[in-house]
């Protein structure tokens, strides 16, 4: 297609916007239309209006569940360089710019900051630090009972090539309870958050995508640690 992309009247602009939304234009013309929409708010609005006009056809697109590998690849691509979750903990660690120093330095800073944080003195905070003498993996986690789930920040080791890292806490009887995979995409086992008390043992294992299929960890332990109550 080599027709010009600028048309004189508003009707022509509108037809061009419609053609773009419908998708019938060739590659070059599509690129030209997209570039123009980025420059001209009025033209972008015409395109948005046509998206609305034709949206009634969207129900003809059936839902098809994508394989889990797509989300994993997406997460690696978008978040590989960032702290795995963006919550108070990762913001705190990023603001301290300490997480790159490793688990011990991060925990020391975190304990100091949280212990001297007088804004919410009544709130019990638990810090979990996990690392390993044998692997590069390191994690720091924060849990405030009553304020959502456990937030985990990875301080070393990177993302596994295959599978997910899963966080566990051992209850008073020594039974492992899952706190979910460390990227926060699976929920904790019932009772797991209740087992998070000062001094409890915690561990991270490498499990199949989506976490262990059975009760308790099935893959190798990559880091261990203990809960510190503040």
């Amino acid at each position, binding site marked *: *297609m080599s027709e010009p992309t600028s048309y004189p009247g508003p009707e022509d602009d509108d037809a061009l916007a419609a053609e773009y939304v419908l998708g019938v234009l060739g590659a070059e013309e599509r690129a030209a239309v997209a570039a123009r929409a980025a420059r001209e708010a009025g033209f972008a609005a015409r395109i*948005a209006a046509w998206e609305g006009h034709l949206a009634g056809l*969207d129900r003809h697109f059936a839902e098809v569940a994508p394989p889990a590998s*797509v989300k994993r690849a997406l997460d690696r691509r*978008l978040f590989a360089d960032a702290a795995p979750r963006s919550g108070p903990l990762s913001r705190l660690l990023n603001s301290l710019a300490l997480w790159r120093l490793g688990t011990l330095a991060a925990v020391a800073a975190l304990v100091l900051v949280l212990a001297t944080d007088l804004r919410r003195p009544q709130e019990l905070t638990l810090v979990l630090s996990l690392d390993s003498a044998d692997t590069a993996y390191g994690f720091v986690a924060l849990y405030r009972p009553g304020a959502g789930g456990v937030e985990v920040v990875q301080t070393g080791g990177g993302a596994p090539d295959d599978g997910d890292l899963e966080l566990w806490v051992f209850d008073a009887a020594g039974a492992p309870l899952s706190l979910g995979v460390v990227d926060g995409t699976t929920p904790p086992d019932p009772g797991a958050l209740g087992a998070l008390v000062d001094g409890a043992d915690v561990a991270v294992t490498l499990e199949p995508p989506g976490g262990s299929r059975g009760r308790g960890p099935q893959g190798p332990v990559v880091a261990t640690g203990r809960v510190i109550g503040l």
Partner: protein
Amino acid sequence: MPTPDDISRLIARVALADRPAFDSLYAHTSAKLFGVVLRLLNDRAEAEDALQEVFVKVWQRADRYTVSGASPMSWLIAIARNHAIDRLRARRGPAAPIDVAAEIADPAPSPEAATVAASERGRIENCLGRLDTYRAWAVRAAYLEGHSYRQIADRLDVPLNTVRTWLRRSLLKLRQCLEE
């Protein structure tokens, strides 16, 4: 099933780089968007790759979504369709042949179509019904299957510029009907 308001709120939180919101948005919308790119690209491996690109765009462009505009699902579907169609247009070699007769015969009016006829969703069907059969087919084939002017012209054995002229006219007629 989340409401459109829920999806809007998730997109607003994604604009603030809220990753749990992004995970939740993915969980609620990826099946629909995968259905879109899979139908348009008709190639599973490429569709998986495209879905990844689509959500990268969602992550990057969430701050441009305005609640005042279209429904959040049609905003997301527009990103998916545009990406898939850009891929189709960049493909080399002749496009796969298409069978107009089969596609026209296929979407027989379902019982559902009758019940939604008066509703917002059914309006486009009504308005398409007022167009000539082949023009309505061309609109559907372009929107749902990603057919280009070239493919439509080849299939109907009509010069490309002729197709362009009547399709543009049909689209303006369609808009008039939708705005009635």
